[in-house]
């Protein structure tokens, strides 16, 4: 018995609950069903109670509770479906396939909704470059994403990459996909409906790959990772491309009643969820499932996570036409069962009924855990650094600091990554991955903004603050480009939830994200939880990554990330509602401190009005000040080839630390000199007079970066360091 529980990754209490739900002990195949559907990955048993905190909605959210992805109506007949998902465990075991199938999976969540995928974004956290296997992990993950995304023809337009020792044995690979539903296109649902309708299997044949993947993702790592290899799935982007085209075609011809991809726990979760949502039953002939390997048994068929497969419900009369469309695209469509009044799901295997069970017993009765956590103090936090240490830094040579920044893997160029991604296929890309915010042109001639959030360095400082920041910072990045954040998706990567410290950080971060998104009126519409990111007892930095979409009403003249014109006035604008400090490297807790509190309501107002201001002004270049502070941000802005010279006496007198980053939310704008005074007037209107904090700090100049007498470096030199940082740190050419 113990063996059996272990094999199916269930504990005694869960077993007792199964017996209670069924009124008898589970038999045969039922073990596998409960194992898969009650895994953390499928049931969200540790997180569900807290995810309710994301309940905030506004009128733009299209009702789609429990659907595959969140859908937001952005007006003009356009809807956006988007979601983010993790593929951490498989990517650590087998980086290329793990990352590739992560992309494939999240794309299926999008086109299942009837949306055409139009963009991808990737959030990657790696360990230190010298950690074992790290170079090949970086290489494998990036080429996995690149080969899959490029081949399916969906551009990867933005991303974020972090490096920290806490990811040495547990990297994070999160991918976001964004889809567009235009006027007249049909949105699909995953509710099975209409007794008598057919259950149709489409796509690649079922193989043994990925059996038990869902329950694997719900476990910590141990030394036996190699033994888990057979659990990793293999992807084929060419097949996926055919699926996208054919599925969108059958949807638009109104040939399907419901559609669902086969993701984690494969056929099991897709069929059970479709039935449970539609409150119907299903009769499924497992022996009709197309197989690659005829020796597969029913349990393997049910749990296989073979990629590029979909389950559809269609009216029998429409089946011939449906089959014709799939055939045209070189795919098979196979009837494997029927919808019944239910509520039972019956699984048949060659004249034998394997199980006859009410799906709601499994899906809705899944265990919920109220994991223990501590209530987080949500005020001024972590300030472990003493003032004398800050003073010491003042004496550091600014020139030297600039070079150090350029050479570091954290702050150096990421173009080794995104040059491998097709960023333009689909011809919607306005701003590609070389810019902090990705922009796509919508058919309505507006610009859709896409950014990822969560700065692990802030999470290491404070989980609640980190949660707020995971929404506010990307929203600020959008605002400085004149875009307003509309909605949020998340991917909550945490360690072991059975540990109270981890669970406490989880709850704090969730509350932070919920509060910030509500304050911005940008609801959290979809998401994903990845627990057990722990290897041999070491947890990762809690990393609640986020993806934001936003809108800018104009496609043209989006401010650039880089200085592009000489003689521009450069302004430094600060949000007065958050003060704090976070170090240049921001890697160690002791280097960080944060004082004061965030007033999230006012902060959100400030960000929103900034977005408005930018969309109304003729700003040439802009950036949110991020890691590395003001100095670093200005350095980056010069990478386009135009230099900068400090001219503010205030700034020259400030010590490095303060001038580096004393405020969490600040930004830089470069504007034509002729529009200077107009811009200042607008800035003053931004907030009640007393609270505006902005200053003219300098001008754009040719070819050099000058900061008082201390710094005078040529842009070419900065660029050289910046572009070489990757090959130097990772020895990847």
């Amino acid at each position, binding site marked *: 018995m113990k063996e059996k529980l272990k094999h199916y990754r269930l504990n005694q209490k869960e077993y007792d609950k199964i017996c209670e739900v069924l009124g008898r002990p589970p038999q045969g195949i039922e073990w596998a069903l409960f194992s898969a559907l009650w895994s953390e990955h499928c049931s969200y048993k540790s997180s569900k109670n807290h995810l309710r905190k994301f309940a905030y909605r506004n009128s733009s959210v299209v009702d789609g509770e429990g659907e595959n992805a969140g859908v937001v109506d952005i007006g003009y007949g356009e809807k956006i479906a988007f979601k983010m998902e993790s593929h951490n465990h498989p990517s650590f075991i087998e980086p290329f396939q793990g990352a590739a199938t992560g992309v494939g999976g999240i794309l299926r969540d999008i086109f299942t909704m009837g949306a055409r995928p139009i963009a991808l974004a990737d959030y990657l956290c790696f360990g230190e470059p010298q950690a074992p296997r790290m170079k090949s992990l970086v290489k494998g993950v990036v*080429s996995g994403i*690149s*080969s899959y995304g*490029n*081949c*399916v*023809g969906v551009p990867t337009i933005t991303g974020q990459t972090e490096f920290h020792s806490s990811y040495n044995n547990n990297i994070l690979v999160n991918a976001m996909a964004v889809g567009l539903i235009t006027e007249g296109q049909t949105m699909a649902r995953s509710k099975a409906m209409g007794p008598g309708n057919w259950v149709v299997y489409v796509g690649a044949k079922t193989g043994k790959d990925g059996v038990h993947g869902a329950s694997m993702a719900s476990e910590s790592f141990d030394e036996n990772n190699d033994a888990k290899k057979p659990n990793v799935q293999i992807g*084929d*982007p*060419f*097949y996926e*491309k*055919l699926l996208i085209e054919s599925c969108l075609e059958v949807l638009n011809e109104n040939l399907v009643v419901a559609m669902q991809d086969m993701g984690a726990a494969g056929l099991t979760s897709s069929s059970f969820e479709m039935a449970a949502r539609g409150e119907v039953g299903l009769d499924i002939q497992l022996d009709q499932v197309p197989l690659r390997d005829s020796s597969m048994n029913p349990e393997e068929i049910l749990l296989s996570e073979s990629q590029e497969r979909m389950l559809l419900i269609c009216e029998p009369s429409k089946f011939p036409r449906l089959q014709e469309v799939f055939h045209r*695209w*070189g795919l098979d469509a196979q009837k494997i069962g029927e919808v019944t009044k239910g509520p039972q799901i019956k699984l048949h295997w060659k004249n034998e009924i394997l199980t006859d069970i009410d799906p709601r017993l499994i899906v809705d009765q899944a265990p919920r855990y109220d994991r223990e956590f501590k209530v987080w103090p949500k005020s001024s936090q972590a300030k472990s650094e003493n003032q004398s240490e800050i003073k010491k830094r003042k004496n550091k040579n600014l020139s030297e600091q600039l070079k150090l920044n350029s050479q570091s893997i954290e702050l150096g160029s990421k173009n080794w990554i*995104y*040059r*491998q*991604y*097709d*960023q*333009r*296929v*689909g*011809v919607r*890309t*306005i701003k*590609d991955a070389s810019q902090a915010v990705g922009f796509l*042109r919508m058919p309505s001639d507006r610009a859709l903004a896409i950014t990822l959030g969560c700065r692990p360095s802030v999470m290491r400082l404070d989980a609640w603050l980190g949660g707020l920041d995971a929404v506010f910072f990307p929203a600020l990045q959008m605002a400085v480009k004149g875009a307003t954040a509309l909605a949020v998706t998340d991917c909550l990567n945490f360690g072991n939830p059975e540990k109270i410290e981890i669970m406490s950080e989880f709850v704090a971060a969730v509350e932070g994200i919920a509060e910030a998104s509500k304050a911005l009126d940008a609801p959290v519409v979809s998401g994903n939880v990845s627990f057990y990111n722990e290897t041999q007892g070491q947890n990762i930095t809690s990393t609640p990554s986020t993806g934001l979409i936003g809108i800018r009403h104009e*496609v*043209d003249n989006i401010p650039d990330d880089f200085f592009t014109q000489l003689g521009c006035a450069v302004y430094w604008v600060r949000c007065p509602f958050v003060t704090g400090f976070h170090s240049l490297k921001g890697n160690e807790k002791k280097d960080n401190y944060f004082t004061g509190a965030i007033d999230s309501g006012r902060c959100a107002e400030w960000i929103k009005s900034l977005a408005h201001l930018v969309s109304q002004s003729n700003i040439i270049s802009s950036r949110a000040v991020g890691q590395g502070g003001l100095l670093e941000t200005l350095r980056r802005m010069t990478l386009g080839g135009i230099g900068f010279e400090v001219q503010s006496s205030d700034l020259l007198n400030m010590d490095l630390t303060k001038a580096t980053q004393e405020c969490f939310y600040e930004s830089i704008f470069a504007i034509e000199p002729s529009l200077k005074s107009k811009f200042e007037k607008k800035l003053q209107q931004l907030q009640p007079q007393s609270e505006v904090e902005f200053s003219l700090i300098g001008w754009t100049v040719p070819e050099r970066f000058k900061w008082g007498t201390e710094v005078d470096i040529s842009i070419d030199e900065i660029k050289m360091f910046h572009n070489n940082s990757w090959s130097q740190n990772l020895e990847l*050419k």
Partner: protein
Amino acid sequence: MRIGVVRFPGTNCDADVFQMVENSSHEPVWLWHQDRFDVKSVDSVIIPGGFSYGDYLRCGALASRSAVMKSVSEFAEQGRPVLGICNGFQILCESGLLPGVLLRNESVKFIDDWVELSVENGNEYFAKKIPVKKRFCLPIAHGEGRYFAPPEELKKIQDKGQVWLSYVKNPNGSLKDIAGLMNEKKNVFGLMPHPERAMQSWMGGTDGGLFL
């Protein structure tokens, strides 16, 4: 002009090219890979980029043996204009309509970037609005764009003025910096860069607008 746009399974720049044709005030029509077409029904043919047949075997190899390519060959033999972009260029080489072949990039990595190009030899069909030797910019996005032809062939290509476009700074190890090529009769063209991705200022460039 009626312009046929060829679609293979795995083509992913099809809609992009369709749109480019429309925006250039021509009339696009789809040509499906399994169907042959009446060569009189279109005035020119474009083969868009992507990963036809998943780039299986060699890029362009499977597509070049498909039914629609038989008609494209017939069309080309009549001296009528055919343009292959990216994977379309690879397909034209594989089908023998253009000499040589496109190999894996020198770096063995996919490259997405903007590149500077120049017109080496003009022609009467595509990009004729760009004067010879004039420099312009287009995006590239390919893993296999390194042009190769054996020495004798290469010499012939150069002697006959078949080099159409060249890279100002070679991104992929292409022989003689070749970015675009035409056949001897100057009616079949292939190029690795994507003109359809540089049609409007918001795309980052407008030089692609000079192609049709």
